[in-house]
């Protein structure tokens, strides 16, 4: 599967990674919902670190869409919330 980290690019990951990533993603979601900023920071960092560790960068000239897209590493809680609710946030 292909995962994009916003601001960093796309990575190719083996499908077997999905269980682990889903667990980290669930923790991230919980932190976003509870509005707990430190928990959010930790959960986002953990998820991104795992994706970076398991993935290999896709060549720049591929046009394949990603299966999953993740917020950039320094996104704050408010930004991620508005990304999830306000579609107008994404230009292009």
């Amino acid at each position, binding site marked *: 599967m292909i*995962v*994009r980290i*916003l*601001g960093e*690019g796309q990575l190719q990951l083996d499908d077997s990674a999905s269980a682990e*990533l*889903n667990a980290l*993603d*669930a923790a*991230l*979601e919980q932190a*976003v919902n509870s509005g707990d900023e430190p928990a959010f920071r930790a959960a986002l960092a953990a998820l991104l670190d795992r994706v970076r560790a398991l993935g290999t960068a896709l*060549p*720049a*000239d*591929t*046009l*394949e*869409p*990603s*299966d*999953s*897209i*993740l*917020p950039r590493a320094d996104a704050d809680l408010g930004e*991620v919330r508005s*990304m*999830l609710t306000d*579609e107008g*946030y*994404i*230009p*292009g």
Partner: protein
Amino acid sequence: MSVMKRVSMIFRAKANRALDRMEDPRETLDYSYQRQLEMLTQVRRGVADVATSRKRVELQMNTLRQNQNRLEGQAKQALGAGREDLAREALSRKAALGSQLADLENQYQSLQADEEKLTVASQRLQAKVEAFRMQKETIKATYTAAEAQSRIGEAVSGISEEMGDVGMAVQRAQDKTAQMQARAGAIDELMASGALDDMTGTPRDDIQAELDSMRSGPNIELELQRLKGEIGAAPTQAIEGGGTPAADGTAAPAAAEQPQAGDGA
């Protein structure tokens, strides 16, 4: 629903809206390509703006460093003359500049990181736009409208995702640059108004004035002694009137100018 899925769905919805807009899917290719070229221009402008902002901060840092060195020199000079109070004052002003400098250094590093990220993003987008252009020509030449539909959908969603990503990065960089420009403008204004001069001591430098007057102090005393001696030795010349006040009149402004002359050097 998970964060990963929601974010990607939002991106996909955006791409689909772009696809739905056109009657003939092949028009979508040209439309999308135009948007890509615009985005590339925008990213490059973003990189240039960040670079300009970074250079401006760099210039301000250089000025502050020069002022710090100058204050350090003054502190040494004051200590040499046994004026610890003056040295202390110079060092405390130097420390005040230090915190401003640290703030500018943070800004500089952050701008530098943004510049690097945006440069990489612009290269990545450039590679994708080129790939898209080639695919666009192939699709247009080889496929009928109906067959083209799915191929176009793939190409457009792939690049539209990249455009969304880059678009957000440019937007953020522009917001940040605007903020930093405002802060840099405020510092430039302070420097121009002389408000910072009182602290760094550029044109009207009271520490330097005192150091200079300490140095010229003995000279003025000697000068006074010499003048007194001349008057004492030739009392008759004093009758010519103008002589004595004139001598006083010239000696005073000369002494007053001395610190300024030393300051300019």
